[in-house]
């Protein structure tokens, strides 16, 4: 059981019409480890992340969460059938997602955003959800903003509330989709600090990012995506220090001074 990866992607392909964005991607994420995905815009990183929690259905391939396939169920005879949306929604609870644009719900307070899914999706009583939500806001150091509406929070604060919203579902893993890309540099740091903190607590994380220093410091493994495939992967020391792929070397050279 301990050998089972928290997340396994197996032969993921994704086609949008003529365009094949992912061309066969496979990898494992061990429980408690942090995997960073780097690569140029359009390399397929975000699509890959969205295939993992099935905001996009992969055209081919399968994602397993603790060994459970997201897209199908197998009956006793070994026949496969596609999962219903309700079943997929059930599995999605186990994956916390943080978006580039935060996507906080503007008509709810910070706490309202955080307790919404625990109450409506998991069916927790309000008091329990609030306790969970307050703990999550505490964890992102925003307990004092619980009654603020998103419009009154800075970008960095909004993103931290979004992280708390994902944490409140007590997911098995967290997915970060360029979580700091739409933030000013000084706001980026407060979000990265929260993410660093999560990593140190042993949260399983997949982080799509352009923050090379963060990827290097925090990750257990770094994957470089190019043109819909994993071009290079390994421990950060190797990928950043001595990349074997020429494309990876070229990509990283644009970030000189940030990570190396």
């Amino acid at each position, binding site marked *: 059981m301990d050998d089972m990866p928290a997340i396994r992607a197996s032969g993921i392909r994704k086609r949008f019409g003529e365009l094949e964005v992912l061309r066969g991607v496979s990898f494992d994420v061990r429980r408690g480890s942090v995997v960073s995905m780097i690569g140029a815009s359009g390399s397929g990183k975000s699509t890959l992340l969205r295939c993992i929690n099935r*905001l996009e259905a992969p055209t081919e391939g399968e994602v397993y969460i603790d060994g459970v396939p997201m897209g199908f169920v197998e009956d006793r005879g070994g026949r496969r059938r596609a999962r219903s949306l*309700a079943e997929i*929604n059930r599995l999605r609870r186990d994956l*916390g997602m943080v978006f580039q644009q935060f996507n906080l719900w503007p008509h709810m307070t910070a706490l309202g955003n955080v307790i919404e899914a625990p109450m409506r999706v998991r069916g927790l009583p309000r008091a329990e959800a609030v306790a969970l939500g307050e703990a999550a806001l505490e964890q992102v150091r925003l307990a004092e903003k619980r009654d603020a509406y998103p419009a009154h929070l800075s970008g960095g604060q909004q993103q931290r509330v979004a992280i708390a919203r994902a944490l409140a579902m007590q997911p098995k893993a967290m997915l970060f989709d360029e979580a700091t890309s739409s933030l000013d540099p000084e706001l980026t740091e407060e979000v990265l600090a929260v993410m660093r903190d999560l990593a140190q607590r042993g949260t399983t994380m997949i982080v799509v990012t352009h923050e090379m220093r963060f990827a290097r410091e925090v990750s257990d493994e770094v994957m470089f995506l190019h043109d819909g495939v994993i071009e290079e992967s390994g421990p950060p020391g190797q990928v950043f220090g001595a990349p074997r792929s020429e494309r990876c070397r070229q990509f990283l050279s644009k970030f000189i001074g940030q990570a190396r």
Partner: protein
Amino acid sequence: MGNWERLVWNQREVLLEGFLVTLHVCALAFAAAILGGLALCLLRMHVRPLRPLATLLIEFFRATPIFVQLMWVNYVWPELFGWPNSFFTAGWVALALQSSGYLAETFRAGIEAVPRGQREAGEAVGMGPALVMARIVLPQVALTTAPAIVNQFTVIVKSSTLVSVITVQDLMFQSQKLVNVWYEPIEILTATAAIYIAFVFAVSACGKRLSDALRRRFGIGSG
């Protein structure tokens, strides 16, 4: 000034009575128009087999004159459906029909304006489509369309004067009755116009304050 006192001030109870009927008709029409508009909009957007029917109704309600609808509901519906069985009901139903057509389109624009990421944030925590609609999309639509909805209420108030034609005893009806008693239209009709203006202005002002407050609080709402 003697005429004003005699024709308007001394008739204030009659006019007030009429105004209350106007309020009643408009409130019922408004509530029905919101529910009807929402239903038409959701049918059109999310229930594929009923889409053509919903689209047809929306276009029909928007494209026919309110006076024709009033006559149609009042004289044709009782023959076809055995309902409505009072002028009052026919009055607010006809008013609701036209506004529901307009509001359906307002709601559709509002739903389409909710960013995709808002829904995805719901889906990502495991919400199904109904929950996403009820908890994430519609509350935001209510906020963004609030000014347009309030504006539609003023349209209903103005159109409501037509129900006097089918003898609903609203403000316009009472005012015309007074004119027909004394044949002195200047003061009474001017006062009637003033009451409508004051009411519509008051409603619009409330709508403006509402949308300002919404924008301050939630950062959303049309400018």
